[in-house]
């Protein structure tokens, strides 16, 4: 099995994905992702030169609608599930 991804790279991807792992989990994850990526090499058996990538399950055209104002979720209901809110805004730790 070839090493597709090293631990440092797993750490970098975790940062991109906004997640944290301890040493043990990072090692386990590196092993599992490597074995999955090795399996994905199977796709390279196929020559896909000139094949269009499929982006939709069915052939869809762009969907347009009139730009009209419709009622949307009221503020109170939008805030109801927030871990922290002040009645008007979502509250988060200080950004700057």
């Amino acid at each position: 099995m070839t090493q597709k991804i090293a631990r440092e790279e797993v750490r970098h991807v975790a940062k991109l994905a906004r997640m944290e792992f301890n040493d043990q989990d990072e090692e386990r994850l590196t092993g599992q992702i490597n074995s999955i990526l090795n399996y994905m090499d199977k796709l390279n058996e196929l020559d896909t030169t000139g094949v269009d990538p499929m982006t939709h399950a069915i052939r869809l055209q762009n969907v347009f609608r009139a730009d009209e104002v419709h009622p949307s979720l009221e503020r109170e209901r939008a805030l109801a599930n927030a871990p922290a809110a002040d009645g008007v805004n979502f509250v988060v730790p200080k950004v700057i």
Partner: protein
Amino acid sequence: MALVALGIRELHDLLIRKDVSATEVVTAFLERTAAVDPYVRAYLTVLADHALTVARAYDSGQMALDASPIAGIPLAIKDVICTAGIRTTCGSRILENFLPPYDATVTEHLQKAGAIFLGKTNMDEFAMGSSTENSAFGPTLNPWDLRCVPGGSSGGSAAAVAADLCAGSLGTDTGGSIRQPAAFCGVVGLKPTYGRVSRFGLVAFASSLDQIGPITKNVEDAAILLQVIAGYDQRDSSSVNREVPEYRSALDRPIKGLKLGIPKEYFLPGMHPDVSSAVEQAIRTCAEMGAEIVETSLPHTEYGVAAYYIIAPAEASSNLARYDGVKYGLRTPDTKDLLSMYSRSRSQGFGWEVKRRIMLGTYVLSAGYYDAYYKKASQVRSLIRDDFERAFQSCDALLTPVAPFPAFRIGEKTDDPLQMYLSDAFTLPASLAGIPGISVPCGLSSEGLPIGLQILGPHFSEELILQIAYQFEQASIFRSRKPELPLPADSLPAQ
């Protein structure tokens, strides 16, 4: 036969004739659930008070039982589908206390048609899994054998139908999550064409693949439920504006003269012998009814697993970016800055399988790897779709097994993600192509576990695959089989 064993159509007939009251029906399912669900653990939330209140509204004449074929019918809903004001967890700690502020389009349709919601069913976290073992709230067990998984990710919905804890249910299918648990639990499961049913209010996993569909005790009930939920919805721009046929009216048509293709790639040497023999018997049954059986080939089948496990995690990594502890869901307390609040909340709230897929998805989409993985997988997806289009030029529908083996033991595949992923090999290609598929029971293994026949058709051919499934079901000897429940108290599994 006990009330709870009846399907949707039979129950509705009794209700309309006033042979039973809606309250009696709901009470029977609640009592059954109290007796059996401690073993099976299909439900995450049981809506006893809500269900009884609606039932009383029917019995007092405030609601009309003749309003629709599902009026007064108790149903279960997979916990990834939003129900306004009713906890919707997606099987995840991160949404443990989430109360959706609105209904999904499908739950709106069901309620307008008068269904009674009995509860929300267990599932693999965010629908990522094939065994329901990835639920943060513990696994659901297979009603046919409590040592086995019910399949996944809609394992709770399939087990609830098989164990008679509801008359029918909704599941969701991204790579087989309706068809495979339906097969493992000996019930009927239909994944509609992508775009046939609105995804509005379905918590997203992989948006180009997710579809909602019915899990029922028989094929006619699947047609009834699909009728209620199918159709265009402005709030889901990938739903398709196309007429919805009368699904039930096609069921009685004989299948004589239909060309049914048998793709040779779906019959592998390593398959469980009982699966091959049950499916071959089902093919013979269709031939005896006058269908023409033709051998066909879907040459890219073996690439389905690799393509799917790039595309689905890529979409998931993007969709699940929304769980950041700000608008809803779990937030880790006492974090000093925004970034650590994000990453600690996510690390604490997500389970291992979800984290692994987010990592894999983030990696395959990251700079330098996009072409090698995501683009390549999307090209292979085109080849898989083309395989089906070619096959449907020479046959009306395809017959295959749903899974290479019957339900496996709890814990058997949890340590090896690839082995678990390979269990979806026969359901993933149809998902990638966006075509509809139905799983219908076709036999039992030597250990007494159900086996499913998969019928696949071209885009928007639900009418046809329901017809074939119905005709097969009527001819098959399997259809009256039920698991033996409730079980003796000493079979209660250890916690």
